[in-house]
Protein backbone atom coordinates (compact mmCIF):
# COMPACT_ATOMS: atom_id res chain seq x y z
CA UNK A 1 0.00 0.00 0.00
CA UNK A 2 1.25 3.45 -0.83
CA UNK A 3 2.21 5.97 1.85
CA UNK A 4 -0.25 8.83 2.20
CA UNK A 5 1.39 10.81 4.99
CA UNK A 6 5.07 11.06 5.60
CA UNK A 7 6.54 13.06 8.45
CA UNK A 8 10.31 13.47 8.41
CA UNK A 9 12.36 14.93 11.23
CA UNK A 10 9.51 17.00 12.63
CA UNK A 11 10.73 19.28 15.40
CA UNK A 12 8.79 21.81 17.41
CA UNK A 13 10.32 24.19 19.94
CA UNK A 14 8.37 26.34 22.36
CA UNK A 15 10.90 28.88 23.50
CA UNK A 16 13.55 26.68 25.09
CA UNK A 17 11.34 23.64 25.32
CA UNK A 18 11.59 21.01 22.61
CA UNK A 19 8.15 19.48 22.39
CA UNK A 20 8.81 17.37 19.33
CA UNK A 21 12.24 16.02 18.49
CA UNK A 22 12.95 14.83 14.97
CA UNK A 23 9.88 12.73 14.67
CA UNK A 24 9.49 10.35 11.72
CA UNK A 25 6.10 8.87 11.11
CA UNK A 26 4.42 7.44 8.05
CA UNK A 27 0.90 6.31 7.38
CA UNK A 28 -0.21 4.08 4.53
CA UNK A 29 -3.48 3.94 2.73
CA UNK A 30 -6.22 2.09 4.52
CA UNK A 31 -4.34 1.80 7.79
CA UNK A 32 -5.44 2.44 11.33
CA UNK A 33 -2.44 3.78 13.18
CA UNK A 34 -2.27 4.65 16.87
CA UNK A 35 -0.02 7.17 18.51
CA UNK A 36 0.52 6.41 22.18
CA UNK A 37 2.71 7.66 24.93
CA UNK A 38 2.57 9.02 28.46
CA UNK A 39 0.86 12.32 29.18
CA UNK A 40 2.87 15.25 27.92
CA UNK A 41 4.78 13.15 25.41
CA UNK A 42 3.83 15.59 22.64
CA UNK A 43 1.08 13.66 20.91
CA UNK A 44 -1.39 16.52 20.65
CA UNK A 45 1.43 18.89 19.70
CA UNK A 46 2.17 16.51 16.86
CA UNK A 47 -1.46 16.74 15.73
CA UNK A 48 -1.37 20.50 15.95
CA UNK A 49 1.79 20.63 13.87
CA UNK A 50 0.56 18.48 11.04
CA UNK A 51 -2.84 20.16 10.90
CA UNK A 52 -1.32 23.61 10.59
CA UNK A 53 -2.30 25.00 13.99
CA UNK A 54 1.36 25.25 14.97
CA UNK A 55 4.15 26.02 12.58
CA UNK A 56 6.84 23.36 13.16
CA UNK A 57 10.38 24.54 13.77
CA UNK A 58 11.81 22.10 11.26
CA UNK A 59 11.02 18.93 9.38
CA UNK A 60 8.78 18.00 6.49
CA UNK A 61 5.17 17.00 6.37
CA UNK A 62 4.41 15.39 3.05
CA UNK A 63 1.07 14.11 1.89
CA UNK A 64 0.21 12.08 -1.16
CA UNK A 65 -3.56 11.99 -1.37
CA UNK A 66 -4.77 8.81 -3.08
CA UNK A 67 -6.47 9.63 -6.35
CA UNK A 68 -8.77 7.39 -8.35
CA UNK A 69 -6.26 6.51 -11.04
CA UNK A 70 -3.52 5.84 -8.56
CA UNK A 71 -1.84 8.99 -9.81
CA UNK A 72 -0.81 10.67 -6.66
CA UNK A 73 1.24 13.70 -6.22
CA UNK A 74 3.54 14.21 -3.28
CA UNK A 75 3.03 17.56 -1.64
CA UNK A 76 4.77 19.30 1.24
CA UNK A 77 2.19 20.97 3.48
CA UNK A 78 4.36 22.73 6.08
CA UNK A 79 3.09 26.23 6.71
CA UNK A 80 -0.36 25.70 5.28
CA UNK A 81 -3.20 27.07 7.36
CA UNK A 82 -5.45 24.62 9.20
CA UNK A 83 -8.27 25.16 6.75
CA UNK A 84 -5.98 24.48 3.80
CA UNK A 85 -4.79 21.26 5.41
CA UNK A 86 -8.40 20.20 5.81
CA UNK A 87 -9.04 21.06 2.20
CA UNK A 88 -6.13 18.80 1.21
CA UNK A 89 -7.95 15.96 2.93
CA UNK A 90 -6.79 15.65 6.51
CA UNK A 91 -9.49 16.23 9.13
CA UNK A 92 -9.24 16.02 12.88
CA UNK A 93 -11.14 15.89 16.15
CA UNK A 94 -10.16 17.49 19.42
CA UNK A 95 -9.20 16.05 22.76
CA UNK A 96 -11.39 18.52 24.63
CA UNK A 97 -14.53 18.48 22.53
CA UNK A 98 -14.81 21.56 20.34
CA UNK A 99 -18.23 21.51 18.76
CA UNK A 100 -20.24 24.56 17.80
CA UNK A 101 -22.47 24.37 20.86
CA UNK A 102 -25.29 26.67 19.76
CA UNK A 103 -25.69 25.16 16.32
CA UNK A 104 -27.78 22.12 15.62
CA UNK A 105 -26.23 18.71 15.16
CA UNK A 106 -26.95 18.82 11.46
CA UNK A 107 -25.45 22.28 11.10
CA UNK A 108 -22.29 21.12 12.83
CA UNK A 109 -21.88 18.52 10.15
CA UNK A 110 -22.86 20.98 7.43
CA UNK A 111 -19.89 23.11 8.48
CA UNK A 112 -17.76 20.14 7.52
CA UNK A 113 -19.13 20.41 3.98
CA UNK A 114 -17.99 24.03 3.76
CA UNK A 115 -14.67 23.38 2.08
CA UNK A 116 -16.24 21.10 -0.50
CA UNK A 117 -18.85 23.63 -1.62
CA UNK A 118 -18.63 27.06 -3.15
CA UNK A 119 -21.73 29.20 -2.63
CA UNK A 120 -20.80 32.81 -1.88
CA UNK A 121 -22.63 35.90 -0.69
CA UNK A 122 -24.35 36.51 -3.99
CA UNK A 123 -25.49 32.91 -4.12
CA UNK A 124 -26.83 33.13 -0.60
CA UNK A 125 -28.86 36.23 -1.42
CA UNK A 126 -30.13 35.40 -4.90
CA UNK A 127 -30.43 31.65 -4.53
CA UNK A 128 -30.01 30.78 -8.15
CA UNK A 129 -30.71 27.23 -9.12
CA UNK A 130 -27.14 25.95 -8.82
CA UNK A 131 -26.91 27.30 -5.31
CA UNK A 132 -30.21 25.83 -4.23
CA UNK A 133 -29.04 22.50 -5.54
CA UNK A 134 -25.74 22.82 -3.75
CA UNK A 135 -27.48 23.75 -0.49
CA UNK A 136 -29.76 20.73 -0.82
CA UNK A 137 -26.77 18.50 -1.42
CA UNK A 138 -25.06 19.87 1.68
CA UNK A 139 -28.14 19.00 3.73
CA UNK A 140 -28.47 15.54 2.20
CA UNK A 141 -24.80 14.67 2.45
CA UNK A 142 -24.63 15.84 6.04
CA UNK A 143 -27.69 13.84 6.97
CA UNK A 144 -26.19 10.76 5.38
CA UNK A 145 -23.05 11.16 7.47
CA UNK A 146 -25.17 11.47 10.60
CA UNK A 147 -27.04 8.32 9.73
CA UNK A 148 -23.78 6.49 9.21
CA UNK A 149 -22.45 7.56 12.57
CA UNK A 150 -25.79 6.81 14.21
CA UNK A 151 -26.70 10.33 15.25
CA UNK A 152 -29.67 10.80 12.92
CA UNK A 153 -32.16 10.99 15.77
CA UNK A 154 -30.46 14.10 17.15
CA UNK A 155 -30.55 15.93 13.84
CA UNK A 156 -32.20 19.17 14.98
CA UNK A 157 -30.95 19.20 18.56
CA UNK A 158 -28.49 21.79 19.70
CA UNK A 159 -25.02 20.30 19.91
CA UNK A 160 -24.53 21.36 23.50
CA UNK A 161 -27.54 19.37 24.64
CA UNK A 162 -26.09 16.09 23.37
CA UNK A 163 -24.88 13.38 25.75
CA UNK A 164 -21.14 13.21 26.11
CA UNK A 165 -20.56 10.13 24.01
CA UNK A 166 -22.70 11.50 21.22
CA UNK A 167 -20.68 14.73 21.24
CA UNK A 168 -17.50 12.71 20.62
CA UNK A 169 -19.23 10.95 17.75
CA UNK A 170 -20.46 14.23 16.33
CA UNK A 171 -16.87 15.46 16.15
CA UNK A 172 -16.05 12.41 14.06
CA UNK A 173 -19.09 12.98 11.87
CA UNK A 174 -18.05 16.58 11.31
CA UNK A 175 -14.56 15.48 10.29
CA UNK A 176 -15.96 12.83 7.98
CA UNK A 177 -18.08 15.41 6.20
CA UNK A 178 -14.97 17.15 4.91
CA UNK A 179 -14.26 14.07 2.72
CA UNK A 180 -10.82 13.34 4.13
CA UNK A 181 -8.42 10.62 3.11
CA UNK A 182 -7.00 10.65 6.62
CA UNK A 183 -8.77 11.34 9.90
CA UNK A 184 -6.85 12.31 13.01
CA UNK A 185 -8.70 11.36 16.20
CA UNK A 186 -7.48 12.86 19.45
CA UNK A 187 -8.54 10.54 22.28
CA UNK A 188 -11.90 9.62 20.79
CA UNK A 189 -12.75 7.20 23.61
CA UNK A 190 -11.97 9.55 26.48
CA UNK A 191 -14.87 9.60 28.90
CA UNK A 192 -16.79 6.84 27.17
CA UNK A 193 -18.17 3.82 28.99
CA UNK A 194 -17.15 0.31 27.85
CA UNK A 195 -20.29 -0.11 25.79
CA UNK A 196 -19.70 3.16 23.95
CA UNK A 197 -16.04 2.33 23.49
CA UNK A 198 -16.97 -0.93 21.91
CA UNK A 199 -19.31 0.83 19.51
CA UNK A 200 -16.57 3.30 18.70
CA UNK A 201 -14.23 0.43 17.88
CA UNK A 202 -16.74 -0.89 15.39
CA UNK A 203 -17.41 2.55 13.96
CA UNK A 204 -13.75 3.31 13.32
CA UNK A 205 -13.24 -0.03 11.62
CA UNK A 206 -16.32 0.60 9.51
CA UNK A 207 -15.09 4.03 8.44
CA UNK A 208 -11.85 2.49 7.29
CA UNK A 209 -13.48 -0.44 5.53
CA UNK A 210 -16.44 1.35 3.90
CA UNK A 211 -14.87 4.65 2.98
CA UNK A 212 -11.26 3.63 2.56
CA UNK A 213 -10.24 6.40 4.93
CA UNK A 214 -7.04 5.98 6.90
CA UNK A 215 -7.08 6.76 10.59
CA UNK A 216 -4.46 8.09 12.96
CA UNK A 217 -5.55 8.14 16.57
CA UNK A 218 -4.17 9.23 19.89
CA UNK A 219 -5.61 7.05 22.62
CA UNK A 220 -4.97 6.00 26.18
CA UNK A 221 -7.37 3.08 26.19
CA UNK A 222 -4.88 0.31 25.41
CA UNK A 223 -7.54 -2.29 24.82
CA UNK A 224 -9.02 -0.17 22.08
CA UNK A 225 -5.60 0.63 20.65
CA UNK A 226 -4.52 -2.97 20.57
CA UNK A 227 -7.70 -4.25 18.98
CA UNK A 228 -7.97 -1.49 16.35
CA UNK A 229 -4.52 -0.60 15.14
CA UNK A 230 -2.50 -2.05 12.34
CA UNK A 231 0.56 -0.28 13.60
CA UNK A 232 1.46 1.73 16.68
CA UNK A 233 3.91 4.57 17.24
CA UNK A 234 5.09 5.24 20.77
CA UNK A 235 6.28 8.68 21.86
CA UNK A 236 7.99 9.93 24.96
CA UNK A 237 9.46 13.36 25.61
CA UNK A 238 8.80 14.42 22.04
CA UNK A 239 10.72 11.49 20.56
CA UNK A 240 9.57 8.38 18.87
CA UNK A 241 10.74 5.52 21.04
CA UNK A 242 9.17 2.60 19.28
CA UNK A 243 6.98 1.52 16.40
CA UNK A 244 5.49 -1.74 15.23
CA UNK A 245 2.47 -3.98 15.32
CA UNK A 246 0.44 -4.19 18.50
CA UNK A 247 2.14 -7.48 19.24
CA UNK A 248 5.62 -5.99 18.93
CA UNK A 249 4.76 -2.98 21.01
CA UNK A 250 3.24 -5.04 23.77
CA UNK A 251 6.51 -6.82 24.27
CA UNK A 252 8.88 -3.94 23.66
CA UNK A 253 10.96 -3.32 26.81
CA UNK A 254 11.55 0.34 25.92
CA UNK A 255 7.83 0.96 25.81
CA UNK A 256 7.27 -0.80 29.09
CA UNK A 257 9.98 1.30 30.66
CA UNK A 258 8.46 4.52 29.36
CA UNK A 259 5.16 3.52 30.84
CA UNK A 260 6.74 2.50 34.13
CA UNK A 261 4.34 3.56 36.80
CA UNK A 262 1.57 3.81 34.26
CA UNK A 263 -0.56 0.80 33.91
CA UNK A 264 -1.01 -0.82 30.55
CA UNK A 265 -4.37 -2.44 30.67
CA UNK A 266 -3.79 -4.79 27.83
Amino acid at each position, binding site marked *: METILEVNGLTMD*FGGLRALDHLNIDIRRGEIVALIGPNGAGK*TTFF*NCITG*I*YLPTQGDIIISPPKAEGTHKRERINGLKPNQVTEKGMART*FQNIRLFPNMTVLENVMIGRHCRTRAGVAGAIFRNRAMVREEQSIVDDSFRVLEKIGLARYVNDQARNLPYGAQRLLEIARALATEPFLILLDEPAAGMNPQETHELDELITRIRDDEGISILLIEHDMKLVMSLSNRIFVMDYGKKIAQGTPEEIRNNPVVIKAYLGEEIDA
Partner: protein
Amino acid sequence: MEYFFELFLGGLTRGSIYALIALGYTMVYGIIELINFAHGEIYMIGAFTALIVASVLTVMGLNEFAILVLASIAAAVYSAAYGYTVEKIAYKPLRHAPRLSPLISAIGMSIFLQNYVLLAQTSDFLPFPSLIPDFEFWEPYSHLLRSTQLVILVTTTVIMVLLTLLIKYTKIGKAMRATAQDRSMAMLVGVNVNQVISMTFVIGSCLAAVGGVLIASHIGQINFFIGFIAGIKAFTAAVLGGVGSIPGAVLGSLILGLTESFATGYVSSDYEDVFAFALLVLILIFRPAGLLGRSTMQKV
Protein backbone atom coordinates in the same frame (compact mmCIF):
# COMPACT_ATOMS: atom_id res chain seq x y z
CA MET B 1 17.67 70.93 22.19
CA GLU B 2 15.85 72.59 25.00
CA TYR B 3 12.66 72.22 22.99
CA PHE B 4 13.31 68.53 22.59
CA PHE B 5 13.82 68.28 26.32
CA GLU B 6 10.58 70.09 27.05
CA LEU B 7 8.67 67.78 24.78
CA PHE B 8 10.43 64.80 26.30
CA LEU B 9 9.47 65.78 29.84
CA GLY B 10 5.95 66.63 28.73
CA GLY B 11 5.67 63.21 27.12
CA LEU B 12 7.04 61.58 30.24
CA THR B 13 4.40 63.28 32.38
CA ARG B 14 1.67 62.23 30.03
CA GLY B 15 3.09 58.72 29.98
CA SER B 16 3.17 58.49 33.77
CA ILE B 17 -0.43 59.58 33.93
CA TYR B 18 -1.43 56.93 31.44
CA ALA B 19 0.63 54.39 33.34
CA LEU B 20 -1.32 54.85 36.56
CA ILE B 21 -4.55 54.05 34.76
CA ALA B 22 -3.02 51.43 32.45
CA LEU B 23 -1.80 49.39 35.41
CA GLY B 24 -5.37 48.76 36.51
CA TYR B 25 -6.32 47.58 33.02
CA THR B 26 -3.36 45.32 32.75
CA MET B 27 -3.79 43.73 36.19
CA VAL B 28 -7.43 42.91 35.57
CA TYR B 29 -6.67 41.63 32.12
CA GLY B 30 -3.86 39.47 33.43
CA ILE B 31 -6.19 37.79 35.88
CA ILE B 32 -9.52 37.40 34.11
CA GLU B 33 -8.70 38.32 30.51
CA LEU B 34 -11.28 41.08 30.45
CA ILE B 35 -10.94 44.60 29.15
CA ASN B 36 -12.44 46.42 32.09
CA PHE B 37 -13.97 49.23 30.11
CA ALA B 38 -15.34 50.79 33.26
CA HIS B 39 -11.85 51.35 34.64
CA GLY B 40 -11.67 54.86 33.21
CA GLU B 41 -14.90 55.66 35.02
CA ILE B 42 -13.43 54.39 38.30
CA TYR B 43 -10.65 56.89 37.79
CA MET B 44 -13.23 59.62 37.13
CA ILE B 45 -15.16 58.69 40.27
CA GLY B 46 -11.93 58.84 42.24
CA ALA B 47 -11.33 62.36 41.01
CA PHE B 48 -14.91 63.39 41.79
CA THR B 49 -14.76 61.94 45.28
CA ALA B 50 -11.54 63.82 45.94
CA LEU B 51 -13.10 67.03 44.66
CA ILE B 52 -16.21 66.63 46.80
CA VAL B 53 -14.35 65.67 49.96
CA ALA B 54 -11.78 68.42 49.49
CA SER B 55 -14.50 71.02 49.01
CA VAL B 56 -16.39 69.91 52.08
CA LEU B 57 -13.23 69.94 54.15
CA THR B 58 -12.29 73.37 52.82
CA VAL B 59 -15.63 74.69 53.95
CA MET B 60 -15.00 73.09 57.32
CA GLY B 61 -11.73 74.97 57.43
CA LEU B 62 -9.08 72.25 57.58
CA ASN B 63 -5.50 72.97 56.59
CA GLU B 64 -4.18 72.16 53.16
CA PHE B 65 -2.12 69.18 54.05
CA ALA B 66 -4.95 67.48 55.94
CA ILE B 67 -7.23 68.11 52.98
CA LEU B 68 -4.76 66.55 50.56
CA VAL B 69 -4.34 63.45 52.70
CA LEU B 70 -8.02 62.96 53.55
CA ALA B 71 -9.22 63.63 50.02
CA SER B 72 -6.72 61.17 48.58
CA ILE B 73 -7.70 58.50 51.09
CA ALA B 74 -11.38 59.06 50.38
CA ALA B 75 -10.72 58.84 46.66
CA ALA B 76 -8.82 55.59 47.05
CA VAL B 77 -11.44 54.05 49.34
CA TYR B 78 -14.34 54.99 47.11
CA SER B 79 -12.65 53.99 43.90
CA ALA B 80 -11.81 50.65 45.44
CA ALA B 81 -15.41 50.25 46.61
CA TYR B 82 -16.74 51.06 43.15
CA GLY B 83 -14.24 48.74 41.50
CA TYR B 84 -15.23 45.97 43.88
CA THR B 85 -18.96 46.52 43.34
CA VAL B 86 -18.66 46.76 39.57
CA GLU B 87 -16.87 43.42 39.54
CA LYS B 88 -19.53 41.81 41.72
CA ILE B 89 -22.43 43.10 39.65
CA ALA B 90 -21.24 43.11 36.09
CA TYR B 91 -18.44 40.57 35.77
CA LYS B 92 -18.72 37.91 38.43
CA PRO B 93 -22.01 36.43 37.18
CA LEU B 94 -20.35 36.17 33.78
CA ARG B 95 -17.26 34.23 34.81
CA HIS B 96 -18.15 31.31 32.56
CA ALA B 97 -19.95 33.14 29.78
CA PRO B 98 -18.55 33.55 26.26
CA ARG B 99 -15.81 36.16 26.01
CA LEU B 100 -17.94 38.83 24.41
CA SER B 101 -20.47 38.92 27.23
CA PRO B 102 -18.35 40.44 30.00
CA LEU B 103 -16.85 42.86 27.48
CA ILE B 104 -20.28 44.16 26.51
CA SER B 105 -21.26 44.24 30.15
CA ALA B 106 -18.15 46.33 30.82
CA ILE B 107 -19.05 48.81 28.09
CA GLY B 108 -22.53 49.05 29.58
CA MET B 109 -21.07 49.67 33.02
CA SER B 110 -18.86 52.41 31.63
CA ILE B 111 -21.80 54.21 30.02
CA PHE B 112 -23.87 53.71 33.14
CA LEU B 113 -21.29 55.17 35.51
CA GLN B 114 -20.65 58.17 33.26
CA ASN B 115 -24.31 59.04 33.20
CA TYR B 116 -24.73 58.30 36.88
CA VAL B 117 -22.21 60.99 37.70
CA LEU B 118 -23.65 63.28 35.03
CA LEU B 119 -27.11 63.06 36.56
CA ALA B 120 -26.14 63.01 40.22
CA GLN B 121 -23.62 65.81 39.87
CA THR B 122 -23.38 68.00 36.79
CA SER B 123 -22.35 68.06 33.16
CA ASP B 124 -20.27 71.20 33.63
CA PHE B 125 -16.57 71.26 34.16
CA LEU B 126 -15.80 71.77 37.82
CA PRO B 127 -12.65 73.53 38.93
CA PHE B 128 -10.47 71.11 40.82
CA PRO B 129 -8.63 72.57 43.80
CA SER B 130 -4.87 72.46 43.41
CA LEU B 131 -4.35 69.92 46.15
CA ILE B 132 -0.71 69.60 45.25
CA PRO B 133 0.80 73.00 45.98
CA ASP B 134 3.14 74.57 43.45
CA PHE B 135 6.63 74.77 44.79
CA GLU B 136 9.92 75.84 43.33
CA PHE B 137 12.59 73.21 43.07
CA TRP B 138 15.10 73.68 40.31
CA GLU B 139 15.18 77.30 39.35
CA PRO B 140 15.83 78.55 36.75
CA TYR B 141 14.77 75.45 34.81
CA SER B 142 11.26 75.28 36.16
CA HIS B 143 9.80 76.08 32.77
CA LEU B 144 11.01 72.65 31.67
CA LEU B 145 9.26 70.71 34.36
CA ARG B 146 6.62 72.04 36.69
CA SER B 147 6.29 70.94 40.26
CA THR B 148 3.03 69.01 39.66
CA GLN B 149 4.69 67.19 36.82
CA LEU B 150 7.52 66.27 39.13
CA VAL B 151 5.06 65.02 41.74
CA ILE B 152 3.34 62.91 39.09
CA LEU B 153 6.60 61.41 37.91
CA VAL B 154 7.80 60.63 41.42
CA THR B 155 4.48 59.22 42.60
CA THR B 156 4.15 57.01 39.56
CA THR B 157 7.64 55.64 40.02
CA VAL B 158 7.08 54.94 43.72
CA ILE B 159 3.77 53.23 43.04
CA MET B 160 5.28 51.13 40.31
CA VAL B 161 8.02 49.91 42.62
CA LEU B 162 5.54 49.18 45.41
CA LEU B 163 3.28 47.30 43.05
CA THR B 164 6.12 45.19 41.73
CA LEU B 165 7.17 44.34 45.28
CA LEU B 166 3.58 43.55 46.21
CA ILE B 167 3.21 41.15 43.34
CA LYS B 168 6.60 39.53 43.78
CA TYR B 169 6.75 39.04 47.52
CA THR B 170 3.38 39.18 49.25
CA LYS B 171 0.95 36.34 49.66
CA ILE B 172 -1.80 38.06 47.70
CA GLY B 173 0.70 38.88 44.98
CA LYS B 174 1.67 35.26 44.64
CA ALA B 175 -1.96 34.22 44.61
CA MET B 176 -2.54 36.77 41.85
CA ARG B 177 0.24 35.38 39.75
CA ALA B 178 -0.98 31.87 40.28
CA THR B 179 -4.51 32.83 39.26
CA ALA B 180 -3.24 34.63 36.20
CA GLN B 181 -1.35 31.56 35.06
CA ASP B 182 -4.02 28.96 35.54
CA ARG B 183 -7.20 29.73 37.34
CA SER B 184 -8.43 26.19 37.91
CA MET B 185 -5.02 25.03 39.05
CA ALA B 186 -4.80 27.92 41.50
CA MET B 187 -8.20 26.95 42.82
CA LEU B 188 -7.01 23.36 43.29
CA VAL B 189 -4.01 24.38 45.36
CA GLY B 190 -6.26 26.36 47.66
CA VAL B 191 -6.21 29.90 46.29
CA ASN B 192 -9.52 31.66 46.86
CA VAL B 193 -9.86 32.81 43.28
CA ASN B 194 -12.89 35.04 43.83
CA GLN B 195 -11.06 36.85 46.56
CA VAL B 196 -8.00 37.29 44.39
CA ILE B 197 -10.08 38.75 41.58
CA SER B 198 -11.79 41.13 44.01
CA MET B 199 -8.43 42.20 45.37
CA THR B 200 -7.15 42.82 41.87
CA PHE B 201 -10.05 45.14 41.21
CA VAL B 202 -9.52 46.88 44.55
CA ILE B 203 -5.80 47.45 43.96
CA GLY B 204 -6.28 48.50 40.35
CA SER B 205 -9.02 50.93 41.38
CA CYS B 206 -6.85 52.45 44.11
CA LEU B 207 -4.16 53.13 41.53
CA ALA B 208 -6.76 54.74 39.28
CA ALA B 209 -7.85 56.93 42.18
CA VAL B 210 -4.30 58.11 42.75
CA GLY B 211 -4.14 58.85 39.05
CA GLY B 212 -7.43 60.71 39.29
CA VAL B 213 -6.26 62.97 42.09
CA LEU B 214 -2.91 63.68 40.43
CA ILE B 215 -4.27 64.40 37.00
CA ALA B 216 -7.18 66.46 38.23
CA SER B 217 -4.86 68.68 40.25
CA HIS B 218 -2.53 68.94 37.28
CA ILE B 219 -5.25 69.87 34.80
CA GLY B 220 -7.32 71.82 37.29
CA GLN B 221 -10.79 70.72 36.22
CA ILE B 222 -12.91 67.62 35.86
CA ASN B 223 -16.21 66.53 34.41
CA PHE B 224 -18.02 63.23 34.00
CA PHE B 225 -16.38 62.44 30.69
CA ILE B 226 -12.69 62.58 31.62
CA GLY B 227 -12.60 58.85 32.34
CA PHE B 228 -13.57 57.85 28.86
CA ILE B 229 -10.76 59.56 26.99
CA ALA B 230 -8.08 58.83 29.58
CA GLY B 231 -9.34 55.26 29.81
CA ILE B 232 -9.08 54.65 26.09
CA LYS B 233 -5.60 56.11 25.98
CA ALA B 234 -4.48 54.11 28.97
CA PHE B 235 -5.92 50.97 27.51
CA THR B 236 -4.13 51.65 24.26
CA ALA B 237 -0.95 52.01 26.28
CA ALA B 238 -1.56 48.74 28.09
CA VAL B 239 -2.10 46.91 24.81
CA LEU B 240 1.00 48.53 23.34
CA GLY B 241 3.12 47.21 26.13
CA GLY B 242 1.45 43.82 26.12
CA VAL B 243 -1.70 43.64 28.15
CA GLY B 244 -1.25 41.53 31.26
CA SER B 245 2.34 42.62 31.76
CA ILE B 246 3.01 45.23 34.43
CA PRO B 247 6.34 46.53 33.10
CA GLY B 248 4.68 46.38 29.68
CA ALA B 249 1.94 48.75 30.82
CA VAL B 250 4.51 51.24 32.05
CA LEU B 251 6.61 50.98 28.92
CA GLY B 252 3.58 51.24 26.67
CA SER B 253 2.34 54.30 28.55
CA LEU B 254 5.66 56.07 28.29
CA ILE B 255 5.92 55.29 24.59
CA LEU B 256 2.41 56.52 23.98
CA GLY B 257 2.99 59.68 26.01
CA LEU B 258 6.23 60.44 24.20
CA THR B 259 4.75 59.67 20.80
CA GLU B 260 1.89 62.08 21.41
CA SER B 261 4.17 64.74 22.77
CA PHE B 262 6.67 64.55 19.91
CA ALA B 263 3.92 64.23 17.32
CA THR B 264 2.39 67.42 18.70
CA GLY B 265 5.72 69.17 18.96
CA TYR B 266 7.22 68.25 15.63
CA VAL B 267 4.22 67.51 13.43
CA SER B 268 0.84 68.80 14.53
CA SER B 269 -1.53 68.28 17.39
CA ASP B 270 -4.36 68.15 14.86
CA TYR B 271 -3.70 64.46 14.45
CA GLU B 272 -2.47 63.68 17.94
CA ASP B 273 -5.04 60.95 18.58
CA VAL B 274 -4.66 59.61 15.08
CA PHE B 275 -0.97 59.05 15.81
CA ALA B 276 -1.82 57.29 19.04
CA PHE B 277 -4.30 54.92 17.43
CA ALA B 278 -2.18 54.37 14.35
CA LEU B 279 0.70 53.36 16.61
CA LEU B 280 -1.61 50.90 18.33
CA VAL B 281 -2.73 49.35 15.06
CA LEU B 282 0.83 49.06 13.78
CA ILE B 283 2.13 47.43 16.94
CA LEU B 284 -0.73 44.97 17.01
CA ILE B 285 -0.20 44.02 13.40
CA PHE B 286 3.49 43.35 13.80
CA ARG B 287 3.53 42.20 17.38
CA PRO B 288 0.04 41.05 18.32
CA ALA B 289 1.02 40.32 21.91
CA GLY B 290 2.35 43.84 22.45
CA LEU B 291 5.91 44.88 23.21
CA LEU B 292 6.51 42.93 26.39
CA GLY B 293 3.60 40.54 26.25
CA ARG B 294 4.39 36.90 25.86
CA SER B 295 2.71 35.45 22.83
CA THR B 296 0.70 32.68 24.31
CA MET B 297 0.16 29.61 22.18
CA GLN B 298 -3.44 28.84 21.71
CA LYS B 299 -4.43 25.97 23.90
CA VAL B 300 -6.02 23.36 21.69
